[in-house]
């Protein structure tokens, strides 16, 4: 509340509360702490400096003024950001450009494995030596280094992945194409026999994952099925399943699917045929007795009518239920409200 009132009184602008928060956060993180934290990171890196650069007392004194000389600290503190910052800053300075460029490409690939601190130390000692003697100039050059060093570091990671991404995408697309797909049946004796016997009635013979599929015109479906059961070489005497699919929006909405199996040749076959809404499907009950209940279930779930079925009525749902649940326009939450009210005495049902 206080923040809001203050913000309203002082600055009625919309962005100002954010600033207030920022200042708060900055207040919680006192600047000296950050600075102390940074030299702490340096300290593990610093002792090797002493070892590497022997014992020149001038270098030891440098970290102490580092609090005041902010330019020197950020360079030393963040070893990860260094190579990104350095090359451009030094390239602009031109004087230490030659050593810096060599170091940075070597440093980048080596970072991931651990034994890298050694090259860093070398880089620091070499890089610091020119900057250190000119302490009076450092105040002028130092801030310039910071601003220049920060900007390129932001730009680089953005540019590089952009170059890599298109290269990665290509192989992924190729992999996706490898999935199974419908293939036309070749040299299929059954398909050729059917095409001879029913010219123009067999629309296609395909296979998917090794299972053959025959698509038949609805007018010839019954005759084709009868000829399949009485086939001389492989009589399909076992009707495994009858089911339907609902392609809502198509002209011929329903697709009848029959799975047949031949005990003689041990072959599994799928027969399909498209029917429009309201078109009667020929019942297969006179060919296989199995299809009695299976067709009743298809009628129950899809509302597909079967001509020639002896007892076509609902099987799983109650006889007075309205609607056909497996149709695509029948929502999963949809219920026959009047049926529930009448039979279950539930007056209010959830919408």
């Amino acid at each position: 509340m206080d923040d809001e009132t203050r913000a309203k009184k002082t600055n009625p602008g919309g962005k100002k509360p954010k600033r207030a928060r920022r200042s708060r956060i900055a207040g919680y993180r006192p600047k000296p702490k950050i600075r102390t934290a940074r030299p702490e990171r340096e300290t593990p890196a610093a002792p090797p400096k002493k070892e590497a650069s022997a014992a020149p007392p001038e270098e030891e004194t440098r970290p102490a003024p580092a609090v005041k000389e902010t330019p020197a600290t950020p360079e030393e503190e963040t070893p990860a950001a260094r190579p990104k910052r350095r090359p451009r800053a030094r390239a602009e300075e031109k004087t230490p450009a030659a050593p810096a460029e060599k170091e940075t490409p070597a440093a980048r690939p080596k970072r991931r494995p651990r034994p890298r601190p050694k090259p860093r130390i070398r880089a620091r000692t070499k890089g610091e030596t020119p900057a250190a003697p000119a302490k009076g100039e450092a105040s002028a050059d130092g801030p310039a280094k910071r601003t220049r060093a920060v900007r390129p570091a932001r730009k680089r990671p953005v540019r590089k992945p952009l170059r890599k991404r298109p290269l990665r995408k290509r192989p992924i697309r190729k992999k996706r194409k490898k999935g199974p797909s419908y293939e036309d049946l070749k040299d299929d004796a059954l398909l050729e026999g059917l095409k001879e016997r029913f010219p123009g009635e067999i629309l296609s013979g395909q296979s998917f994952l090794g299972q053959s599929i025959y698509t038949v015109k609805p007018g010839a479906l019954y005759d084709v099925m009868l000829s399949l059961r009485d086939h001389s070489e492989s009589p399909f005497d076992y009707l495994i399943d009858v089911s339907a699919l609902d392609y809502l929006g198509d002209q011929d909405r329903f697709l009848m699917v029959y799975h047949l199996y031949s005990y003689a040749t041990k072959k599994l076959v799928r027969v399909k045929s498209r029917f429009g809404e309201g078109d009667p499907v020929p019942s297969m009950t006179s060919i296989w007795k199995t299809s009695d209940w299976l067709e009743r279930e298809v009628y129950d779930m899809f509302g597909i009518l079967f001509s020639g079925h002896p007892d076509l009525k609902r099987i799983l749902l109650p006889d007075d239920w309205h609607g056909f649940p497996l149709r695509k326009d029948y929502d999963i939450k949809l219920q026959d409200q009047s049926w529930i009210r009448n039979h279950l005495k539930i007056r209010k049902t959830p919408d």
Partner: protein
Amino acid sequence: MNRQTILDTKELEINMGPQHPSTHGVLRVRLKLDGERVVDAESIIGYLHRGVEKIAENRNYIKCTPYFDRTDYIAAVSNVYGYVLGVEKMLGIEVPERARRIRIMMTEFNRIASHLLWLATHAIDIGAMTVFLYCFREREEILKLFEAIFGARLTTHAFRLGGLWLDMPPGFEAACRKFIDEFPARVDEYEQLLTRNRIWLERTKGVGVISAEEAIDWGLSGPPLRGSGVDHDVRRLRPYGGYEQFQFDVPMGKHGDTYDRYLIRLEEMRQSRRIIAQILDDLPDGKIRGRAPKIPKPPVGEYYSAIESPRGELGYYIVSDGSPQPFRLRIRPPTFISLQALRRLVRGHLVADVVAIIGTLDIVLGEIDR
């Protein structure tokens, strides 16, 4: 009622179920009787309909797996197995050898458990109480194994796409071995109680006879079909999941009656034990799950995946339109189709035999109604 009408033997309609102990759930049979002979029987089902196929269309391929535990709750492991195999085939997921073998082993354990439950209830329907207690003793051991490896006794949610969820816990293999070592003697025990029992023979021999041609015409599968002498086992004819590696016999009957189906199921339990023993002798180490996508999107297409569940041919017809949900998921329940033949099997028998015939079909209403 005067005497004349009774002697006239008019057709009498009797309602059996849905709350009848021997209908194994909520099956209602409307019997037409001539005296005590059954003239006609109409099964009325759907009391347990939950619309699993519709639910599956509105869930993604992983989320709809647990629903198939609930279709056939007696054989939950093999029910999920059929579905998972189909989706894996469409996605081209490779299952590690260890997971494949554990899957087969657990499916066979499930077959034993299911047959034990069948034998127990079938016997108690006919009047043999002791067998019920004996069978549940062994079934309990299997359910304990399920709990150890899957975390649940009945609704196991056994298999995941690409393999299993967890590997076998420590000591599991030894527990399996202990069970299969003891089990043959237990089956002999049941046989001692029933196989030559005079009452059992009277009640089952020549009851519910169906010839091979008729069984095929009615689309029967599993033990009811093999009882009529048709050599049809999906494990052998269209091997899935690595069944071709194992040796087992497919028992077959001659007469196609209730007694033959009883003998077949007993023999199947022995054969399942044989498969488990082969797996335990040669169980490779390695991963238990292959790489499977987190949100599977099978390519546009269709696949019919069938397995030999304890009750017969269980099929999943999966149609994908490339989206994360199946466009259509059709379950081909074995007992839905074998229950259809009840009308044919019951005709001409006594009312008491109806109970035996319902029992011999080994129906599970959860699967029939879905």
